[in-house]
């Protein structure tokens, strides 16, 4: 009786048939998700603070922004 030893690559074959653990979520997905959550929180806070989202929302920024745009246009 010849001892043939263990079947070649049997442990490797067994390992290949096992499901592999899932790699972690990519960092770029986590970063974009955090940014989205932050924007959502800002939006919810603004709604809770009673800010109506309409053409009047940006009234406090309008004058500053339009002034900046006009200044840039004057320089150009």
């Amino acid at each position: 009786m010849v001892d043939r030893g263990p079947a070649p690559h049997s442990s490797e074959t067994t390992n290949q048939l096992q499901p592999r653990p899932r790699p972690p979520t990519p960092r770029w997905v986590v970063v974009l998700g955090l940014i989205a959550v932050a924007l959502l929180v800002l939006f919810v806070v603004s709604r809770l603070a009673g800010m109506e989202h309409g053409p009047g929302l940006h009234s406090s920024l309008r004058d500053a922004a339009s002034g900046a745009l006009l200044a840039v246009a004057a320089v150009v």
Partner: protein
Amino acid sequence: MVAFLALALAVVLTDDAEVMRAGLSAMNALTVYALVPMALFALVMAISQSLVSPWGLFRHWWVVVKLLVTLPAVLVLLQYTSTMASITKMAAGEPSAAALRSLAMSPVLHAGVALLVLLLATTLSVYKPRGLTPYGWRKEEERRLARQRR
């Protein structure tokens, strides 16, 4: 979207009230007759192409993120058509250039943000960053194990 932003900037940078009113009216028409149909068409095409292609709709993170970015943008655009109509109506009765300019700031800001969203979606489509979702990983493993067992 670039044309919309250009019109909005033209309205903000001019002092002629008639030009401002015409610009706001043109932006309204552009929104209703160009932006909305093209956005809906692009969304439907993107989803149907994902379902047909090997990339799938939920297997890769770049496809999922692009969908999560595009879908709210299209919904906001649909909601913004009523805002744009209100702005145009307000502009019709507004005599002063300063008031018209302030009305145009909302379209400028929204168009700027929309362009950033488009840039992000385009970047994802071009670079296709690596990463399988849990669903995609499970499908890949099932396929790999099925191949191994043959």
